[in-house]
């Protein structure tokens, strides 16, 4: 059968089946299932969209703290000047038009016994299933002298928005010859290659506008992801490991993680008690699951939320699912793509469970890009399947752009990374 006829034919069967099969559901007048999603980022927005796609009869409420979401992924390009903050911002109009009820409020409490979510403005939302997609929170106390209030002066910029603007403005205000310090927390944190991509994007800006300046990375870990690529570009463009190096990487081998800050003096102390002052400091604290997850009791001693791999339902509290950065999936990185992948697994599993069906065995993926120059980006992809015991993940396949690729390939990766951003954000928010 020719392709177009075949398509017509399929549409016919689908149309008929849908009409016949959905009729009893409508007549039965059963109450609709309710899902309340907390968090409107990559995980939460994707889950809302894919729940509605899987079953439009599910009543989906998405509670987000802000009417506009700013993606942290791709936000490093703001520092080189290649991207505006506005280009990273998305609203919830499309989700609303899909029938998702969007509430702008801050969730103060989840009551697992009454199956209710309560907000700061005193609203309460009953759920059959709740999805916690609240991203990361910071372990402020791990750096003496740092706090949420101090972040208004010394930005982490690890949640995008005003923090991104603050850091970008400080870089613009810095004198030529200034020192920029970036502190990298111990793993696991959101997006492991990103601090190094950030250093590189800042270096792109400094080389153009303030070429005498310097960036020092204080890393609590001993290895960086995509290390060969970063070091290659740093050597090529920024005199890495020479006297005139614009980028210097001090790492865990020398106990270079930051443990203390003097905000007024802009003075940093490393674990080895080295002291360094800087003109602009980007202090990225150690991370944990969002506070609401801790307060609800969804976390274990690791401060992340253990979940069932078939549905992302919490193994600690039934009917609450945790997706994205807050979830504890060990070998799965904390990235937007992984959150998007988890959100779909979760949405499809919930739709199956509501139908009384056992969810199919899922798989998970991460795919992301780091942009290191106008003509050089590196991709990273990994696919994870469930082990036979269904409680462990196996990294079945993956890789990064080979170091010996041709210039044509590295240029292509830049084009792919920007196309990737357009498609992933459309998949999440539209």
């Amino acid at each position, binding site marked *: *059968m020719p*392709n*177009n006829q*075949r*398509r017509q*034919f*399929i549409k016919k*069967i*689908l149309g008929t*089946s849908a009409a016949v*099969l*959905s009729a009893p*559901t409508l007549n039965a007048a059963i109450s609709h299932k309710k899902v309340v999603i907390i968090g409107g980022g990559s995980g939460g927005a994707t889950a809302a*969209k*894919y729940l509605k*796609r*899987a*079953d*439009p*009869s599910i009543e989906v409420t998405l509670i987000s703290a802000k009417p506009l979401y700013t993606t942290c992924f791709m936000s490093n390009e703001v520092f080189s000047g290649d991207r505006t903050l506005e280009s990273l911002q998305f609203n919830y109009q499309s989700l609303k038009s899909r029938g998702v009820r969007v509430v702008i409020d801050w969730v103060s409490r989840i009551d697992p016994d009454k199956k209710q979510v309560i907000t700061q403005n005193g609203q309460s939302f009953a759920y059959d299933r709740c999805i916690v997609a609240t991203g990361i929170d910071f372990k402020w106390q791990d750096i003496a002298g740092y706090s949420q209030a101090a972040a208004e002066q010394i930005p982490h910029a690890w949640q995008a928005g005003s923090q991104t603007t603050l850091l970008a403005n400080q870089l613009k205000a810095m004198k030529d010859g200034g020192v920029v310090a970036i502190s990298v927390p111990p793993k696991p944190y959101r997006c492991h290659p990103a601090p190094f991509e950030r250093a590189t994007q800042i270096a792109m800006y400094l080389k153009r506008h303030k070429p005498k300046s310097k960036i020092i990375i204080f890393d609590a870990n001993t290895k960086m992801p995509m290390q060969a690529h970063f070091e290659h570009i740093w050597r090529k463009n920024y005199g890495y490991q020479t006297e005139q190096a614009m980028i210097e990487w001090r790492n865990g081998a020398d106990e270079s993680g930051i443990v203390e800050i003097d905000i007024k003096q802009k003075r940093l102390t490393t674990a080895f008690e080295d002291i360094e002052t800087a003109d602009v400091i980007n202090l990225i604290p150690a991370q944990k699951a969002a506070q609401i997850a801790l307060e609800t009791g969804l976390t274990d001693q690791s401060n992340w939320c253990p979940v069932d791999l078939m549905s992302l339902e919490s193994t600690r509290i039934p009917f609450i699912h945790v997706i994205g950065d807050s979830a504890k999936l060990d070998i799965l990185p904390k990235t937007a*793509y992984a959150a*998007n*992948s988890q959100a*779909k*697994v979760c949405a*499809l599993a919930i*739709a*199956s469970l509501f*139908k009384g*069906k056992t969810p*199919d065995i*899922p*798989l*998970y*993926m991460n*795919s992301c890009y780091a942009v290191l120059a106008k003509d050089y980006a590196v*991709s990273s992809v*990994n*696919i994870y*399947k469930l082990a036979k015991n269904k409680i462990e993940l196996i990294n*079945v*396949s*993956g*890789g990064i752009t*080979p170091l010996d*690729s041709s210039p*044509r*390939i590295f240029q*292509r*990766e830049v*084009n*792919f990374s920007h*196309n*990737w951003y*357009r*498609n*992933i954000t*459309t*998949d999440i928010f*539209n």
Partner: protein
Amino acid sequence: MKYLFFLILLMASFCDAAPPAVFDLDNAALLSKDCEGCHGTDGVSQGTVIPNLAGAHRKFLFDTMKKYQSGKYLSTVMQPIAKAYTDQELKLIAAYYAIKSPVAAIQPFNAALVAQGKKYHQKYCKKCHGSDKEINDDEASQLAGQWTGFLEMSLLDIKKGNHPVPRKMDKRLKRLLARHGNKAMASLLAYYASQQGQKDAK
């Protein structure tokens, strides 16, 4: 249609290597979900270098993944991705995108080249790649309404021997370039990009 677990029956006949004629839509959707972060929801890309998958022929999609898997096609992420799936899973993914309605890319093109591009298409490409109102060969990719950036990239790979094509295509491509030069390519791309209407896209 999403309410219930059911099987889709396709009446068309296929050879053994083709993706399944009967498949579980829910499972196929679950397997395909991770394609969409990069290729767009329902396989509709925002362009310009990541291709649309929606409505592509399932045998073409399956064969393409096998060629990425074996490394016959040059790629970065596509090889490790293709390696992660079993043949059975790849067939389900291919079947899933084959039943999606294609959506033509809305993109700029050089209008002055379209008429000439159409002539080249009819002479050199149409037999396998169909034309605006005809069908594609089972093994040929959809060109009408595909993103120009992606097609350009693929053509370059074909020229450099990084993306082997069937001999009949190789011969025609060489003949086209020998007779009309590189501008013929620009004309063809303009023609495919100009096909932005719903009917044209199919």
